[in-house]
């Protein structure tokens, strides 16, 4: 099971970085820089490797580095892999980005002062994850200085998963265990503390999982990702920073689709069943639908059309939606212990009810 985590940890995206034309002061203009960017890393951390490539051509002044993709300024605190998964529906290899060393758009992007800003943002997210999982940030705030340094080093030198696990296991952020993920575990992982409450069989009943959900939508179907509309503004992406509450139920696997639907209740108002064997229980479950909120209007609007989850991309892969959510959390989570999900929704065709 370490394998999946290793693949994620070592995943990288080839970037082709162009200097913005306004900052090119020499002829011929410099060639773009080619660099392999770790998925779990952050763009500002690449600057020491990129800058030498362009320094001879930059205009005089102080550097304030930022990146854009097709004109969209990139949020530097979002891990590189997530930016790629989100903004390139059809993966572009190499990914062509533009770097700027001047003219930081301070009205759009929060300031970044290099590695320190990224580290601060990372630790902050780790604290938030700890709070979500444990109810307090103590384990992170009480980290020794050497541990903090080692943790950060293991992230920015993205090859070092062993060092990361060594330090992060002290944070007691645990793994999500349920009977569906248990088969996939190696014995070494079983000894780690579990998130949430467990019953006598060790099956997790409840727990909060840190999630960052990025949702974009389309109105029409598309067969090829190439035809998906380009995201040209952050206002087109709905960012939802909310934990998923796992409620373990006997005999029922909490899937990735269940998790996504629980984060977007307004699109999936009915508790829908996605296991084939559960279809027999559909009749029983109809009674569970809360009736106080249902008006005829709502019923006819949502009668057969929930929104459709067209795409869920995590660490560059698109798992089957029936996959146990616990496996996804344990293997695809980022080093700051958040699971980042890029979701494309096809919106329902809302039927306007006719007045009778």
């Amino acid at each position, binding site marked *: 099971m370490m394998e999946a985590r290793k693949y994620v940890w070592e995943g990288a995206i080839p970037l082709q970085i162009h200097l913005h034309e306004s900052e090119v002061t020499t002829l011929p203009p410099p060639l773009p820089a080619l660099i392999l960017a770790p998925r779990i890393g952050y763009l500002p951390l690449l600057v020491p490797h990129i800058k030498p490539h362009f320094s001879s051509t930059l205009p005089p002044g102080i550097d304030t580095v930022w990146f854009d993709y097709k004109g969209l300024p990139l*949020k530097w605190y979002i891990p590189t892999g997530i930016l790629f998964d989100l903004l390139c529906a059809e993966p572009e290899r190499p990914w062509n980005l533009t770097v700027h060393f001047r003219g930081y758009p*301070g*009205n*759009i*992007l*929060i*300031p970044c002062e290099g590695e320190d800003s990224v580290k601060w943002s990372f630790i*902050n997210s780790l*604290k*938030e994850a700890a*709070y*979500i999982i444990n109810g307090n*940030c103590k384990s992170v*705030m009480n980290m020794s200085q050497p541990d903090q340094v080692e943790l950060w080093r293991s992230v920015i030198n993205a090859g070092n998963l062993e060092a990361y696990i060594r330090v992060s296991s002290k944070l007691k952020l645990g793994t999500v265990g349920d009977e569906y993920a248990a088969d996939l575990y190696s014995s070494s992982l079983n000894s780690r503390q579990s998130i949430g409450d467990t019953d006598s069989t060790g099956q997790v009943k409840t727990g909060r999982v*840190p999630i960052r959900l990025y*949702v974009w*939508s389309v109105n029409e179907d598309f067969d090829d990702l190439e035809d998906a509309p380009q995201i040209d503004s*952050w*206002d*087109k*992406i*709905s*960012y*939802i*920073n*909310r*934990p998923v509450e796992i409620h373990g139920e006997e005999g029922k696997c909490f899937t990735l689709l269940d998790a996504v639907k629980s984060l*977007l*209740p*307004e*699109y999936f*108002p009915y508790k829908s069943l996605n296991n084939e064997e559960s279809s027999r229980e559909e009749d029983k479950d109809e009674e569970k639908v809360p009736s106080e*909120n249902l008006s005829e209007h*709502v019923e006819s*609007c949502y009668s057969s059309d929930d929104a459709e989850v067209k795409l869920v991309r995590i660490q560059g892969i698109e798992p089957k939606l029936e996959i146990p959510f616990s496996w996804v959390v344990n293997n695809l989570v980022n080093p700051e212990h958040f699971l980042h999900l890029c979701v494309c929704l096809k*919106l329902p065709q*809302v039927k306007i009810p006719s007045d009778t």
Partner: protein
Amino acid sequence: MSAFPPWSWVPCPKQPWGASASHDVEGYLSLENIILSCYAQEEHDEISCPQKEETSCSEKEELIDIATLVQSNCSKVPYYDLHIIYSASYRVPVLFFRAYYSDGEPLGFNAIEKDLPAHSAKALLDSKWTFITQEEHPYLNRPWFKLHPCGTSEWMKLLFHVDVSVAKNGVTIELYLLSWLSVVGQVVGLRIPLEMLNQP
């Protein structure tokens, strides 16, 4: 005389493409274009009763009248926008704010720090519970300043610990927010009139 800037509720559909009806409306409390106490000439503080709206959903949805501040004549007076946004992660309200001069020029962190009441600037540096960072506004895709929520539930528990009736009956959303604001507001120099806190 002074006008009353009531807080207003700004609903935010989660989806920028204009979603159909949500069962659970998200949004934030907003108070904008105000001048904070350090610059105001407070000869008359008018106090009004807090209005209690029915809270049909779990999000904090109400109007709070607070003592308002008379405008000063100083031209380089910073204006503040304050938003109170619920954090699902920390399960507490979080204060977001930004400041700008009357010509629209935004204040950076250093300028804001100078503008804050002297005691709170020191509190900022000393306290691990309340410190200010610059982060992206959860809904507006722009950089705002945020009062860090990490310790909120700790000191909120302390606040309510002394009140026996609270321990027995729990606390209404209005009282929670008022108490929260009485602490948080001190950081930015926002004052809550005592009369409000004595409302049943």
